[in-house]
């Protein structure tokens, strides 16, 4: 039996949702029939709108899909203006203020506290500047990710940017692929650093070379069925297919049609293609793709470049994360700036846009590590750019604890999260920087903090993986984390081993300090990842203990039970929601 979501999708889905959305916007929040909330909120996701969590009714998260994280000149300023004008809620965030932009782990942008009445105006402004929220959420082609400096990277063997652009053009708003059984995440990468993170995508194009008709051809090997969610992580699997950049749209169309037709629409928890790959195996996937969905003979896989991957590969000789100053093939430079937990206040976003315009081409790019890159800076302008005050807060040479931090949205806005995330991760990173000396030789140390098993912060592929949990302390329930060690990507990707479970949130920094001390004491020449991999579960459990320190955590209580964790009056009964367009709360008497 199909799920209720499939039933709602059968009635209205895809582009046609827009006209309904605009009607509701015109008439106001209260015009959405009470008994149709679930159906419409599910559908609105297709247009990038996600109803915020319980206690924040009538406010939406809006996601803007920027393919490959590329913001063309002028676009970032538009985003800042929209965030400033429309993304303000009834309470401020103590770290980030009243309006801010989030850069996501899929190179997209998220704004919060959006009111449905403002959506048509926001869409007008976005679309007039080549931006869109289409298919940013929902069951269809999501934002395409890849190496964030595609087309401007000396490590690149195939220019993947035109391929990503073409896939974006072809599969956004394409009614043949607008209603899939579940989300469809695609990565296209042409560089040899592995920063496209193809391994954790539904469909991945990774650089490869193959001799075709006697000529060496650069293109992609195809992998299928990666993903991290729901305690069922999978790396994408090699289906033994090589394709040229020209054929990437054909393989993409074939694979997403195969998923559309054969994915499980009866059980959303079993719907992602990773489960179909489990069930069928790669040979059947390949054969079905060849026989039913592609009209040319698929070449077998070529030679990949995975042994050269440096990004998140557990190595300390190269970062591979595009932070810092790097020369482009055209002689200009790109400068990657660290953004703690991917969130910037709007004034900083506007300043960044202005600096990109002044020193570079105006283009800004977003990375899967929630950071930003200013491209096309001439050599002669570099020093002046690096002296700009904004770069004191968004450093091109950050401390490893700052550089390595990623956090998802958390209980601030998200329905699924168990714990507060972004503000806590900021506090963790600051405490670690002040109190923990990294063992000699460690330049990269990734700590990924995810509020729940959905794994939006990609915890399983970090040196330290933090996944939201609860425990009891002195009998009282407090926010906590399961802690994993030794995850990462690279030639031989590895998911973290879950070692310390249900650690109270205020004991996590002490645990990390103790793990690093044990590593320093016991390791020889091993990298941290090798050190973890060389020990069995029992040894790892004995490695370190959680410990209270002078780190103070203001979010130990059940933040999910508040209407907003940082409000002065945070009880659910104090919520000023739902609200009308002007922010006045709608009471039960209205």
């Amino acid at each position, binding site marked *: 039996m199909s799920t209720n979501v499939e039933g709602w999708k059968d009635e209205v889905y895809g582009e046609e949702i827009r006209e309904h959305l605009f009607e509701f916007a015109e008439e106001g929040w209260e015009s959405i029939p009470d008994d149709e909330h679930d159906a419409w909120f599910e559908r609105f996701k297709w247009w990038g709108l996600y109803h915020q*969590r319980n206690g924040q009714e009538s406010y939406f998260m809006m996601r803007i899909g920027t393919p490959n994280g590329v913001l063309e000149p002028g676009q970032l300023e538009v985003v800042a203006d929209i965030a400033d004008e429309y993304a303000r809620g009834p309470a401020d965030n103590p770290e980030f203020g009243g309006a801010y932009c989030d850069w996501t782990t899929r190179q997209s942008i998220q704004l919060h506290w959006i009111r449905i009445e403002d959506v048509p105006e926001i869409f007008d402004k976005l679309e007039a500047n080549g931006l869109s929220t289409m298919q940013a959420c929902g069951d269809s082609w999501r934002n395409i990710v890849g190496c964030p400096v595609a087309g401007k990277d000396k490590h690149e063997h195939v220019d993947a940017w035109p391929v990503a652009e073409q896939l974006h053009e072809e599969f956004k708003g394409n009614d043949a692929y607008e209603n899939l059984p579940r989300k469809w995440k695609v990565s296209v990468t042409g560089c040899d650093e592995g920063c496209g993170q193809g391994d954790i995508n539904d469909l991945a194009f990774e650089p490869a070379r193959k001799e075709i008709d006697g000529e060496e051809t650069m293109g992609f090997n195809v992998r299928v069925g990666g993903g991290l969610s729901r305690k069922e992580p999978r790396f994408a699997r090699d289906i033994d297919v090589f394709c040229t950049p020209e054929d990437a749209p054909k393989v993409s169309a074939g694979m997403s049609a195969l998923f559309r037709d054969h994915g499980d629409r009866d059980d959303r928890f079993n719907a992602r293609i990773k489960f179909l790959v489990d069930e069928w195996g790669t040979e059947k996937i390949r054969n079905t793709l060849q026989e039913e969905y592609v009209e040319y003979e698929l070449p077998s896989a070529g030679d990949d470049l995975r042994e050269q991957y440096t990004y998140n590969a557990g190595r300390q000789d190269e970062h591979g994360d595009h932070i810092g100053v790097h020369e482009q093939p055209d002689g200009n430079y790109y400068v990657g700036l660290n953004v703690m937990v991917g969130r910037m206040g709007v004034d900083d976003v506007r300043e960044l846009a202005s600096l990109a315009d002044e020193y570079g081409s105006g283009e800004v790019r977003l990375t899967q590590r929630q950071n930003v890159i200013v491209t096309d800076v001439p050599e002669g302008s570099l020093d002046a750019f690096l002296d700009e005050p904004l770069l004191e807060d968004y450093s091109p040479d950050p401390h490893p604890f700052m550089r390595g931090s990623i956090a998802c949205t958390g209980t601030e806005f998200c329905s699924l999260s168990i714990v507060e995330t972004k503000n806590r991760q900021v506090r963790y990173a600051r405490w670690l920087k002040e109190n923990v000396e990294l063992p000699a030789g460690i330049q990269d140390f990734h700590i990924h903090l995810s509020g729940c098993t959905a794994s939006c912060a990609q915890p399983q592929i970090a040196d330290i993986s933090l996944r939201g949990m609860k425990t009891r302390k002195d009998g009282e329930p407090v926010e906590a984390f399961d802690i994993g060690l030794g995850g990462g990507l690279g030639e031989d990707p590895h998911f973290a081993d879950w070692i310390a479970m249900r650690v109270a949130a205020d004991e996590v920094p002490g645990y990390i300090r103790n793990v690093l001390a044990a590593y320093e004491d016991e390791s020889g020449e091993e990298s941290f990842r090798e050190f973890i991999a060389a020990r069995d579960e029992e040894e790892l459990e004995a490695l370190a203990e959680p410990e209270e320190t002078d780190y103070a955590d203001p979010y130990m209580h059940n933040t999910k039970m508040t209407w907003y964790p940082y409000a002065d009056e945070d009880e659910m009964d104090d919520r000023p929601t739902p609200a009308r367009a002007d922010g006045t709360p709608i009471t039960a008497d209205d």
Partner: protein
Amino acid sequence: MSIDVHQLDAGAWISVNDSREVSVSNLWRLARQEFCGCEMADFLAEGFVEVGVDTRAIEARIAGQCIACGASGVTDWLAVGRVLDGEFRPVVPESVHIPCRRSRLARPASLE
């Protein structure tokens, strides 16, 4: 009277008659349960896997973890609340609950 029940947003919450009523992240005390070896499981709800209606009782199978022993998995059916006079009355998660195997088929979501 119809009762419309859904689990939504990847199992983040249970909607009863289009109102978000039961959320993940609560701790539930489970007795006489087969989920883990604890006499009383201290169970963190991480996701609602299935929802159904039995007369006026809203029931769910919940994915999560016992924070006392660490066992994780999916519970048997648990009553999460009742609909009385058209209004949802939730149970108190931290009081004691007894999961049950169904002796007859659950009525899944969206029922008349």
